[in-house]
């Protein structure tokens, strides 16, 4: 066998392979950057300062910060309920009914997403104080709801559009009332879309500090607001880091659970996940 007839061997490092390796390296570099601030907080939360050590910082989260966590969960839960009540019927009507000026209306309902938090905060602070005379927890809940409901609307609208109208027609032809059709056919079938909306709203509202800073009632301090206030007044204390890490872990857990159950495709159109 002459050398000329032996097939050329694949080079160990072809340019194609190098490109592949570089691609993966780039992705991971960016991912590390994403997670770096979190990892920094994590390492700091486990650090020592003033005697309290390691996991002791986390004891503080559920001890002295317990109230703040509780408020965060409560505010977030109530906000999600209001978001649902606003978005489910609106998304249904926008997709199924002939609404004059549909595009414009949808854009107007999406707009809260694009108003800077500080502007929403200031405008609500002033109207709550001078017009609506609200100074209870509900002011905060409503503020969270108006800022987050567009996030819930989009995945529900997409899910409704992906649901053939035939299922509803079949249900009605089989004798179901409108309400029976909504409850037994429409809601279950758009469930994943609704859940995607719930998840998005959850992670945004649960971690919201800016609008909260403007409109929170004096006695009420949610966990993210607590983090914000402590960072400003108390520097970078490990216990503060522990609270921030806890908040992010809870949020991350919600994301992971959702991904495991429903997958990732239900965020189509949200441009967020």
């Amino acid at each position: 066998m002459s050398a000329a007839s032996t097939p050329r061997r694949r080079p160990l490092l072809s340019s194609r392979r190098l490109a592949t390796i570089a691609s993966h390296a780039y992705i991971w570099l960016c991912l590390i950057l994403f997670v770096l601030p979190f990892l920094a907080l994590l390492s700091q939360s486990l650090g020592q300062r003033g005697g309290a050590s390691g996991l002791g910082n986390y004891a503080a989260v559920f001890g002295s910060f317990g109230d703040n966590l509780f408020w965060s969960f409560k505010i977030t839960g109530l906000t999600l309920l209001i978001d649902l009540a606003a978005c489910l019927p609106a998304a249904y009507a926008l997709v199924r009914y002939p609404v004059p000026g549909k595009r414009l209306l949808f854009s107007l309902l999406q707009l809260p997403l694009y108003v800077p938090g500080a502007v929403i905060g200031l405008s609500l602070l002033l109207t709550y104080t001078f017009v609506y005379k609200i100074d209870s927890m509900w002011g905060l809940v409503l503020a969270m709801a108006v800022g987050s409901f567009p996030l819930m609307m989009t995945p529900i609208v997409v899910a409704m559009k992906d649901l053939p109208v035939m299922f509803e027609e079949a249900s009605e032809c089989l004798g179901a009332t409108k309400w029976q059709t909504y409850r037994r056919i429409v809601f279950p079938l758009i469930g994943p879309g609704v859940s995607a909306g719930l998840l998005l709203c959850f992670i945004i509202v649960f971690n919201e500090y800016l609008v909260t800073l403007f409109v929170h009632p004096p006695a009420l301090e949610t966990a993210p607001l607590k983090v914000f206030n402590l960072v400003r007044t108390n520097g970078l204390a490990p216990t503060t880091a522990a609270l921030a890490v806890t908040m992010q872990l809870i949020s991350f857990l919600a994301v992971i659970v959702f991904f495991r159950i429903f997958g990732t495709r239900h965020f189509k159109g949200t441009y967020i996940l």
Partner: protein
Amino acid sequence: MTTVHLSNVTKHYGSTVAVQDFNLEVADGEFVTLLGPSGCGKTTTLRMLAGLVEPTGGRILFDDQEVTWLAPRARNIGFVFQAPALFPHMSVADNIGFGLSVKGRDKAFIRQRVDEMLDLVDLEGYGKRLPAQLSGGQQQRVALARVLATDPRVLLFDEPLSALDKNLRDTLKYSILELQRKTRKTAIYVTHDQSEAFAISDRIVVMNAGRIEQIGTQTDIYLKPRTPFVAEFIGANNGLNGTVVAVDGSGDDAVVRVDTGGLLLRRRGRTRLTPGQAVLAYIRPEDLSVLEDGDGRVHLNTIEGTIDRLIFEGASAQLRVEVAGVEMRADISGGQRLALVQREGRVRLGFDDVTLIPSEAEAGTAVVTDGVPDEAGPAA
């Protein structure tokens, strides 16, 4: 025991006319098919029967009860969609029981009824499966079981087989017919597929552009088309524009001269045509036969032309012949089709039957229709 009566049913979408003055009586237990090209209004008519679309005008009666304005759920109908439309989050049994469950029937009754229905469509033991675990044909059978479970007054089918492949279509259309016969339900079936309509209907309603062209049995609409549309839409046909030149004194026979080329066609049988009248003459391709020299057969009409081409289709062959400036199609079967494969040049054709339809102002020029229905989707 339900008759269906539509009188002057009309549906306009803005300035578009979807259905205009639709009149039809369907007897109890009858199987009527609405047949027409896509966009002819057949699906809209069916959806008005179901209550999914509100008519612009007219009345719909089930027996003596007016249902024109009733919601679908108050009509007690069974609607089978183009796709099976099984609720994907419910088991087969829950799908079949849905109609009874929303009416609040008790669980034991529903379970028994579901079993009966599964039995009826030959799907015993499939109750616990999810729709996604069934084949397309099985899904459509579950859809049938689901509408039958509620014991509807009328069965409505909206091209239920169009999403399935051909073999399945053939078997399933007979299952549908068999179930309808067994349950003795009045059925109205929409399709654009002639062979489907011919296979299962008692009567066929041919529709075009929102109007009824003809109502009749298979032989009626095939052998005695009343309008040019029916003659051209149903089956293949050779259509020729002509003028009546003579009618027998007793009104029995007519002679027509074809406008292009001046060919003379004779037709036997009673007629109400008068000389000078413009008509469309239709000759079915299968009625044309190739005459060999010394052929003993005698035909009322004999024409001669040049072979343009022969399309061999297996069981039969399509012969395209140019006769006096007009292209005609002849469908040849049997041994003769093989002899024709190599044939070129002149050929003589003989035929007896000619259908004459008075042509309206807008009637077109000579046409050969091949009777292949529009494969596009159904009317919106």
